[in-house]
Structures are given as structure tokens and as C-alpha cells.
């Protein structure tokens, strides 16, 4: 069967089996940025934005995404370059092995859209469902806070 979604800003048709997870269908569609780290919603590596909200795409059937708006890490880039958040992750040392990174960045983007000026505690809570085994999280929290503050400065100037 095919499902119809707005995928990273473009109306697309994605092939999926009725019992296929959204994560698996998106990866088969070529969007391999998101990872399947546990397939039980514990690691967050498969996070995507569904109508702007971060979700574990491994816990959804592809069919449940019918008619909805999906953004993956690939879709967060601005124009031809990486987004400010993606750049901040690299510059703050928040990327090591990189396997959790796409899901982590998606979760962070979801946070910053609904809460443009989060406290540190709010940042920690927003990524509590995304496991990173490399960084100890401090650099990730720094990258998110820096992006929030840069976006805030951009709006007030």
C-alpha cells in the first residue's frame, strides 16, 4: 500500500506494508538519517517530527502517518546547508559517533519550536527519551541552549 504524507515539506507517496513501522518505511524510502536503535521507543534514535511534535517513529505504523506532516533530520537543513541547530551540535562537540544525533537533533528542534527559550531543566527533560552513550549530554545541552539564544537574539534584533 501507499501512504500519503507531507515529507520534509513535499507531498510524497511512501510504500509501506500494513504492518510496517513508520521508521522502517521512512528508512526504506531513503531517509536513513533516523536509526532503529531499539524498536521499543526507549532510545529515541528514530525520532521524527509529526505535525511538529517529536515522536518515536518505531512505535507507529506507517499507515498512522497518512495525511500528516513528517520532518526528519534531513529536512531540518536550511537551503543547501545545515541548520543552525545542526551546526551548533558539531561546533559544541555534541556529535561523537553520530548514531543518536539525528534523533537528538529532531527532539531538540521540536522543543525549540514549542518553547523557544527553554531552561536547562526543560532541555534535559526534552531529550530524556533520547539516549546518547558517547557525550554525557553536557555538550548536547550546550548546543541546544546556544541555538535557543541565537534564535532569540535574531528575533529581537
Amino acid at each position: 500500500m501507499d501512504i500519503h504524507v507531507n515529507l520534509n515539506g513535499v507531498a510524497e507517496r511512501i510504500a509501506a506494508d500494513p504492518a510496517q513501522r513508520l521508521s522502517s518505511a521512512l528508512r526504506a524510502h531513503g531517509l536513513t538519517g533516523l536509526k532503529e536503535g531499539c524498536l521499543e521507543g526507549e532510545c529515541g534514535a528514530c525520532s521524527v517530527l509529526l505535525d511538529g511534535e517529536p515522536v518515536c517513529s518505531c512505535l507507529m505504523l506507517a499507515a498512522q502517518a497518512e495525511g500528516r506532516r513528517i520532518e526528519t533530520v534531513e529536512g531540518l537543513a536550511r537551503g543547501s546547508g545545515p541548520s543552525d541547530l545542526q551546526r551548533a551540535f558539531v561546533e559544541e562537540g555534541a556529535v561523537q559517533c553520530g548514531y543518536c544525533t539525528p534523533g537528538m537533533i529532531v527532539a531538540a528542534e521540536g522543543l525549540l519550536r514549542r518553547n523557544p527559550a527553554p531552561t536547562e531543566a526543560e532541555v534535559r527533560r526534552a531529550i530524556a527519551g533520547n539516549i546518547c552513550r558517547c557525550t554525557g549530554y553536557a555538550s548536547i545541552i550546550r548546543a541546544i541552549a546556544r541555538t535557543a539564544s541565537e534564535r532569540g537574539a535574531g528575533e529581537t534584533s
Partner: protein
Amino acid sequence: MTAIGMRHPMLDGLAKAAGGQLYAGDLAIEGLAEAVLVTSPHSHARILSVEDSAALADPAVLGVFWHANMPSHRYNSSVWFEGQEADADEAMFPETARHIGDRVAVAVASSRAAAERAAARLVVRYDPLPARLTPDEADRARGPLFDAVGAPTFLNPVDERRFARGDVEAGFAAAAHVSETTVATPKTHHCAIEPHVALALPEPDGRIRVLAPCQSVHAVQVVVARALGLKAADIHVVKTPIGGSFGGKAEPVLEPIAAELARRLGRPVRLACDRRQTFSSTRMRSATATRIRIALAADGRILARDTETLIDIGAYVTGGNWLPGSMLQRHVRLYDIPAERYYGRAVYTNTPPTGAFRGYGSPQINAAGEISLDIAAVRAGLDPLAVRLANALRPGAIEPYGGLDVGNARLRDCLILGAERFRWTARRAAPGGQGRWRSGVGMAAAAHVNGCFPGSDESTTMTMRLLPDGAIEMISALHDLGCGSNTTLAQIAAEVLGLAPAELRIVEADTDLCGYDLGTRASRMTYVQGEATRKTALALARAVREAGARVLNTAPEDLVLASGRLARRDGGEPLDLPTLARHLTRAGLPLPAATETHAATANPSSHAAHFAEVRVDTLTGLVRVTDYLAVHDIGRAINPMLVEGQIHGGIQIGIGMALCEDVANDPETGRMAGDSFARYILPNSLDMPPIDVHLVEAGEPTGPFGAKAVGEIATIPVAAAVVNAVNHALGTELSHLPLVPARVLDALDPDAGAAASSGTA
């Protein structure tokens, strides 16, 4: 210095952040078949038959393989190089499963979904056997490891190691305080977010190409060859980007099977574990139980120490036979102790096999040594920091294990700086509360090695050359495990060559391209590969200046390589590298190239002192680490941002070992409680304290630009620092890790704990 000491972003960071980095699981290859393992639900059972007709009825299924139709060559997955002898007790598919998670069969199909369906349809008949599930029980089953015909007996001990120096009895006789403690450390899992995966493809020339996230392409090559009964030259191995390893991908677990399937089916095959299999069917950190007796003089000097450790290495030897020795090596590198006795032994159990995990035994023996020393100090009424300062190994000391000079080892500096910045004395004396919440502070020190000298051939070869487009290519056995080692090495090369690190074109490990090397392990990348990089860059810089001198008709010594070009001392027009390359290629002159082999001839110590503050809820038994400070003797930080990243990540893994991580094999059934992220609890963003990192950069003369290792030592002292803080907060002597709430509550009120556990039984 332009590149050294720079907080340079990781070279492949943007590709990762944009989702464009392709890992082995992401590769789309024409005709790729997918393979799914079936693993044993029994701790010990003969595998009688695998009924596959239901699975094979699906036309998408390409085959089902198990011990009846796969090669049965015995091998050891921890072999590093051709010719190395090792206890060979593994087979791709054993006739008898030796642990829950052992490999029973594999189903191959044209898609992952079809392979999963096929695996689920296999009917396996088992004949369960008695299992030895605890190391104590296993230790009683003693005998030779192999029988008369060379078959493994799985008797114990797998290895034992004794060591003695000085007059231990005299030390204890002279002691003002004698303290004895037993410390237990859990089996913990690496939990790299990338589950285990390997890919193999038949090559047109008859070889098999293996693509895998691995720590040594040469180790994969030799292990696959032995498992398949082929020559190493028949196997071509290419390292793929790695989604975390921490030692977990040091041993080829899946590669032999993927290679055999590709050979047998004549098409590319990917074998991938799910998370449960990654927990139960790969490798983990060995569990240890260590009894330590310490003789302290009244002034805190350690007069003698007597250590006995029992190491549970699980179902197969892998590298477990090295653990008694490597734990001893690190145990005696920390303090200057005049009399020491050590007895370590490693035993098989019917639990998942263990292997390398960030420190290779060091976190276990460090937890034992540093928790015991803390308890001894408190019992004697001495300050734990003062006791460590009184015994700390000094620069230039000769360590007693191998008689090696520990180099510019700055343990005392770490202790002194850490105590000052953490305000140790004041915080240690501060009251921790009497109510529901109690706080306390603790600390621990650590020592670790830099590479494998002199035990293994610590040499590595690198080639650098100017390419026709003016870029500089770097070829060696490079295995960046995600820590940024390629970036670090590029910074070293860039410093010598006067380039920007991003201008280096890095070729990662490929057995067709790079020289033999031990791979990324034993904290050897920066110290050994880094020095090889520096030497090769120096040789290339010479060759570039000579080539430039020919083009510019001047002398090489009149040219300086800086900012990507050759500047002339006489003030003439500089020559950039693309222009130089163009001149040379047009004139038919050779492009400059250099190949150097660096062999390490020393193995200095890296040191660290860690300080932790905890808050314990005495009602629930939950422990939170509320503040943390780490000081590391790093020699010289090539990239302080990456160094801090290693330290923060190491602390995260160490806090897990101290407080919550345990695969927890049930001693009665062998069942693993922690075989998923839902039940294996590891620290997340809410669990991590603020961390303050300080570096002691006193320079190691034998390291590149003075640098030493940090990757493994970052996690070594953490568990002890945290446990010592809990004991300080509660006035307890907790020493059975991890300090899960039930153990904390038991320690606070042993009677209530016993009542509660009998109540639930």
C-alpha cells in the same frame, strides 16, 4: 602552534548532524540479502535439530543455516593478527549452546521482514544440560581447557595469574590498621546505539569483502579466515562508520557468519542484531569479585596489599584469559606499595561471553582497589585524599608489573588540583544531613596504560602524499570509533604541515590499503598513531619542500610550509600546494609522498583524580550524583573539546556502573534481566550531574606534542568515586555494585531489607 590545542569540530560532524553519514545498516546494495539470527533460550543445551520446512516454504527465504550445514572450524574471536595462538573454543554455530543468546541458526531472505518471519518459523529441539551460572560454582569445576583430541572442555580456570613482591607478611605485621573488603562489580553492556551489524559481499576475484563497524580490520580478517577455514588473504575488510563501540565491536562476532553466507549464496548479505541480541549475543564487561586486604601505617602509607580476584568471563574465552594479567598491570600502576600479593583467575560460566569494554578490566580492578582503600582509610580515621597523596606513584617511577618507566605521570598534580577546585576538605567535613536526604562526597584516583608495549607489536605505518589536486591524503589503519580520533590525527598532521585539519583527506582502515596495525584499542590511538602521524608529516613536509625547491629553483631550507603553501624566506612569491602539484604533474615529476613506521618503545601512565557529590534518598534508596569534578593527566590536549567529550562520556558510563547498569543474569535460571533499554537502566540526560573538567598538561616526552591517552581512563575511577561518596553520605561500607535502591536500603537497615526480601519471595 596553530592546530594543536584547537577546539576543532569533528571532521565528519556535519555529515552526521545532517543525517548523511551512512553506517553499515544504512547501505543500500543491489541484491542485498538480509540475515537474522536465532539464539538460544537455554543457558546450556545440546542443539538436536532445526526444523526449517515452514521457513523455507516462503520463496523470499534463501536459506537456513546452523551447525549441521555450516563450517565448524574452532576459533577465538579475540585474535588480533595472523599467527597468533589463542584458545579456540568458539564456532560460528556451536553444537551445544553455552549461554542464553548463543548462536543457534540464521535465516537469510531477500528482505529483513522475510528473514525475521523465517527465523520465527524455525523449530529448534534442545536437550537442556546443567549450567554453571555463578563464578564460584564454575570455579569448582576444574581441569584442563582442552581434552586429548583438542576439544574444549570448558573447565576452569581459563587463566590464573599470581604476582608477589616485597615481604607482604611483614607489611601486615607492621601495620597500624588492617582492613579487608570484598568488592563486586557487575556485568555491564556497552550499549552503543548502533546495534551490531556486518555486511559481506563476494568479490569478482573470489575473495570476500567484509564491511563492518570494527576496531581492527586486520583482526576481522584473521578471525573470519579462521572461522571459514580460508587464508587471511582471501578476506578483504573495510571499516564502516561506527555508531559507538566502547570495545563492544572489537571482536568480530557477526563478520564470520556474514562472510560465509555471502560466499555460500554468492550475493551480498547483511547480518544485523536487534537490541536484545546486541545485549545477549555479543560481548560485555566481565563481572568481578575481589577481596582486598590493606595494611596501613599510622601515617596512611600502604605497607602491603593482598588482592584476590575472581573474574566471570562468561561462556567463551575470547580475550578473557588476558584479564587477570591486565587487571594486575593497572592495579600496581597507581600507588607505590612496597609489598604486594595478587592472585587473579578467570572462569567460564554459562552466561554471555565478555570482552573488551573501555578499560579492559581496569574499571573493575579500580573499583575494587579504590573502594577498598577508601573503606580502609575511613576505618583508620584517615582522610581518603591524604592516603592517596601519601602513596601516589611519582613521575619516572618504575612500575612493578613490567618494569616500565611510567613517564611524566602526574597523579599527584591531579589529586592536588582536584582537591583544591572541588574544595575537598571543606565539603568532606560538611554535615550531610540526618533526615530523609543525605549528601556526601567521595573521590578516587586512576592509572591507565598508553598502548600495548611491550606485550604486542606496537608499530604502525602511515603514508601521506600530495595528490594531483593539491590535497594531502593520509592512509593508515585508522579506525575512528566516533571519539574523533581522525580529527585529532588530522590536527597533528596539520600542525606539522602548516595546513588546516579539514584539508587532510583521511582514508580509513581497509586491508587492501593500509599496513598492519593493532587497531583502535588499549588507549593507543593518540599516543601511538598520533606519533606515527607526526613523524610521517615531518617526512612529507621535507619531501614537499624538496619538490617545491625544484620548482622554484631554490634550496629546500629556504622554504617554509605554512597556511597551505610554501613561503620563501627570501620574500619571493609563495607557492600553494595545488599549484605545486600542477607544476609537478605537468613536468612529469613525482608528487611528494612519505611512508613512516613508528614503533612505540614506552608505555607511560595516564592518570586521573575524580571527585563526586551524591544525594541519597534514604526512603527510596535512590542515589543522585549532584556534582562532579574530573582532573586528567593528559600530557597535552591535542583537541580539548574532544578530550572533554571523552571525559564526560566516560563519567556517564562509570555512573551507570556505580548505580544502575547490570545485565543481571539470574543465578538460578541464567535469564538476563537487562536485555533491553527498558530494563537495562543507563544514565540519561536527567541523571547526569554538572561536570567540571580540569586538565594537567605537563607533557609526555614520548607522546606526539606531549600527548597521552584519555579514552579509557575517563571511565576508570568513576564508579569508585561515586560509591565512596555514597558511603560517606550514609556512613556505610557498600561495595556490591551497582548500588541499586534495594542494596542501599539493605545497607541502611539490614533487618528491614531481609524482611522485605523474604516477604516478596
